[in-house]
């Protein structure tokens, strides 16, 4: 058994859920054998008795023991709930998968059918089935089961469609696998976990549906009985003997809980520990002449899947002077992005950040921010991320997003803000800015969006532009345009730039000073002009292992030591 699963099973919640499931299983198997007689024995003398020593839940109008009947009804109730769930899941998934792999016209038709079915109320469907097959256990099960099919069809379709877009499906297609094998081998295993969780929720709601159906007289018919039926019978006398109704009701609620908790247990990801942000050292006073940002002995740790803290940045120190261009270069997992995010105060709340000093314009970034310091950050710190499509709000126009900063922090009026937005777009080289401000982010190209991000920084008066892999998603010619805009912006505003990239050639060509990071540490700091005199073997290897336009094509590329195992993002 894998350790994560064992940990989940031995947690208090896991133990209670497992115990509940076992009790339920025992009742389904053994209940009718043990209490079967007692549940059907009529005793007219004892009829309609209240709860007492002999009958814990009291008796019904034929003098049968309600507790025994509740226990015996477990089998019917649980089995029809599971039966209905099986119908929904199997039917739904088959329909959903068919809607994913069949030829296009059929696929569209099926997807449309699923949408129509989804809009159909399930109770109406149940009434419809009862009319066809007559009220009874089987027709109730079929009704609830069929009624659940559209939901699972939609879910299965959506999940399968996302798996079908993956490259490993394409690879299987290229190897000549047919649609059926692809579905069986690749699609089903990958959509199973979310489906299982939803199936447990479905089982719980099916149980409730049967209670509802019995209440309407459409469910299980006498002499058979399930919890819903018992509940209905007990409800008639709720003022005389409340336990007669509450007992079966409680059974329904507890069983629903066991079902959903089983799903939860299956799905649960590692628990996140609570992290306390500590700060060390006193912040220096705000001053204009000093460095824009100062970092001393920065440590950042993140909890891993089992909740242990893993240190990703280990004792990084540097400072950024006004107007300076600094580059951090390193491979994935080196801590370069985490360092820049820590400086901007943008790390996930689970991160533990400690530093002797971590200040931007004298604001201590390890302490909670005051209103004033928030204002300073909003106007003086600008960020440009790798993927401008995710860092811009897709549903707001470019203009709205540009003017936000000026309106919130700058106190500008709407018209003023709009004028400034147009000016900002002009200065980052966007043609027809009046038209562009009215467009949504997806209507712009990648390079345009990145210029908008830079323009957004310009709306305020930035002292520092933090650019984290700003051109990695862009083509080389567009990269050159965006970097040109960045440089022009810097000249105009006098802002310092912290450029984070994996491309050492790019960093060396754009920055004054370079920090080389590896495994959370700065291994070397040097002026860009001195790069060819790098001392540290890692820096030298990093330079040598990348092919450039003069690499010797007859020799293999030098390789950096052993391949470092990467941290797997969860």
């Amino acid at each position: 058994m894998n350790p994560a699963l064992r940990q989940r099973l031995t947690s208090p919640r896991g133990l209670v859920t497992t115990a509940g499931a076992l009790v339920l299983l025992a009742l389904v198997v053994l209940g009718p054998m043990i209490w079967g007689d007692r549940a059907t024995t009529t005793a007219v003398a004892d009829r309609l008795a209240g709860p007492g020593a002999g009958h814990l839940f009291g008796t019904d109008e034929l003098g049968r023991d309600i507790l025994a009947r509740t226990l015996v009804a477990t089998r019917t109730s649980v089995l029809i709930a599971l039966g209905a769930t099986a119908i929904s899941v199997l039917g739904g998934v088959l329909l959903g998968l068919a809607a994913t792999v069949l030829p296009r016209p059929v696929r569209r038709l099926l997807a449309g059918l699923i949408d129509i079915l989804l809009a159909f109320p399930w109770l109406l469907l149940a009434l419809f089935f009862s009319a066809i097959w007559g009220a009874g256990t089987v027709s109730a099960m079929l009704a609830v089961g069929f009624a659940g099919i559209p939901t699972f069809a939609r879910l299965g379709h959506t999940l399968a469609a996302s798996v079908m877009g993956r490259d490993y499906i394409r690879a299987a297609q290229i190897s000549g696998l047919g649609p059926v094998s692809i579905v069986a081998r690749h699609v089903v295993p990958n959509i199973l976990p979310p489906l299982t969780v939803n199936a447990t929720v479905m089982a719980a709601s099916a149980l409730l549906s049967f209670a509802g159906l019995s209440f309407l007289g459409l469910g299980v018919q006498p002499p058979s009985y399930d919890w819903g039926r018992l509940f209905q019978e007990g409800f008639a006398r709720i003022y005389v003997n409340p336990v007669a109704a509450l007992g079966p009701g409680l059974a329904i609620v507890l069983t629903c809980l066991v079902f959903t908790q089983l799903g939860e247990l299956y799905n649960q990801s590692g628990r996140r520990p609570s992290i306390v942000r500590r700060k060390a050292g006193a912040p220096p006073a705000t001053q204009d002449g000093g460095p824009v940002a100062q970092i001393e002995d920065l440590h950042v740790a993140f909890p891993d899947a089992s909740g242990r803290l893993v240190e990703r940045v280990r004792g990084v120190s540097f400072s950024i002077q006004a107007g300076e261009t600094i580059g951090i270069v390193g491979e994935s997992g080196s801590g370069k992005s985490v360092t820049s995010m820590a400086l901007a105060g943008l790390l996930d709340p689970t991160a533990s950040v400690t530093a002797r000093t971590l200040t931007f314009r004298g604001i201590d970034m390890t302490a909670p921010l005051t209103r004033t310091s928030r204002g300073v950050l909003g106007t003086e710190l600008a960020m440009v991320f790798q993927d401008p499509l995710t860092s811009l709000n897709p549903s707001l126009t470019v203009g709205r997003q540009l003017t936000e900063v000026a309106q919130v922090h700058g106190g500008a009026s709407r018209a003023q803000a709009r004028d400034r937005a147009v000016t900002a777009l002009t200065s980052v080289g966007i043609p027809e800015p009046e038209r562009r401000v009215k467009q949504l982010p997806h209507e712009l190209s990648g390079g345009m969006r990145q210029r908008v991000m830079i323009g957004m920084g310009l709306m305020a008066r930035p002292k520092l532009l933090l650019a984290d892999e700003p051109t990695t998603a862009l083509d080389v010619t567009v990269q050159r345009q965006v970097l040109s805009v960045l440089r022009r912006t810097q000249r105009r505003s006098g802002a310092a730039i912290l450029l984070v990239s994996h491309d050492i050639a790019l960093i060396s060509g754009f920055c004054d000073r370079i920090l080389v990071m590896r495994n959370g540490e700065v291994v070397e700091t040097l002026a860009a002009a001195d790069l060819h005199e790098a001392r540290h073997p890692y820096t030298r290897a990093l330079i040598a292992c990348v092919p450039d336009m003069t690499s010797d094509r007859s020799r293999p590329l030098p390789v950096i030591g052993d391949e470092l195992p990467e941290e797997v993002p969860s």
Partner: protein
Amino acid sequence: MSTLEFTGLHVRYGHGRRAHLAVNDVHLQVPSGTTVGLVGESGSGKSSVAAAAVGLVPSTGSITLDGAEITRQTRRRVQMVFQDPFSALDPRMAVGASIAEATRATGRRWSSAARRQRVGELMERVHIDPSRAGELPWQFSGGQRQRITIARALAAEPAVLIADEITSALDASVQGVVLNLIRELQAELHLTVLFISHNLAVVRYVSDSLYVMRRGRVVESGATDTVLGAPKDPYTAELLASIPVLGQEFRLEDN
């Protein structure tokens, strides 16, 4: 080994007025036993050429393998390695099973022992310990995963291998390992490779000849050294000027 040739290839996405011509009249030849580089920016149509070759997108024009028009059967002799090693392996399938699955493309029947032995050979070929065949993709690093996808492509015994941006998602140090592997396979197996990338330096390093694409058309082609040494097309020249060179101040646009 075989020659892959595209003649008058067109790839069109969408219908009617919204149709977009991604590949427009491309003529391209990958001679047997050589590596041909295909460079271009995003949207230039280079990946569509690859997708057309393996039949992932419909195309018009002719694609021939050894002079014969490619069919459903012969198409399996063209295999592809994808850009993102995280998306290219089924997260719930052992890597050995993924490689074994691709042996189906050979069209022969494999006994389970022979298949297991073949998977072991292929894993050794790409320098991954064969005893790890039962492990799942997440237990490998990005570079190792990319090598596994290369092993999977080789399992199909391809006549032509198409590598579509296979190093773009990798770190610099790992990129070197994968490029060295491609060169090694090329030398030992005399593979015919169509190597697609936006990175000129990477393409230059592995390719004998080169095609430059822009907006669906081939703008320049020829021997790698000739094209890069004396580019005739202004776009190729612009591409060359846009590449940052280590230790040289980046030539930005006129400020």
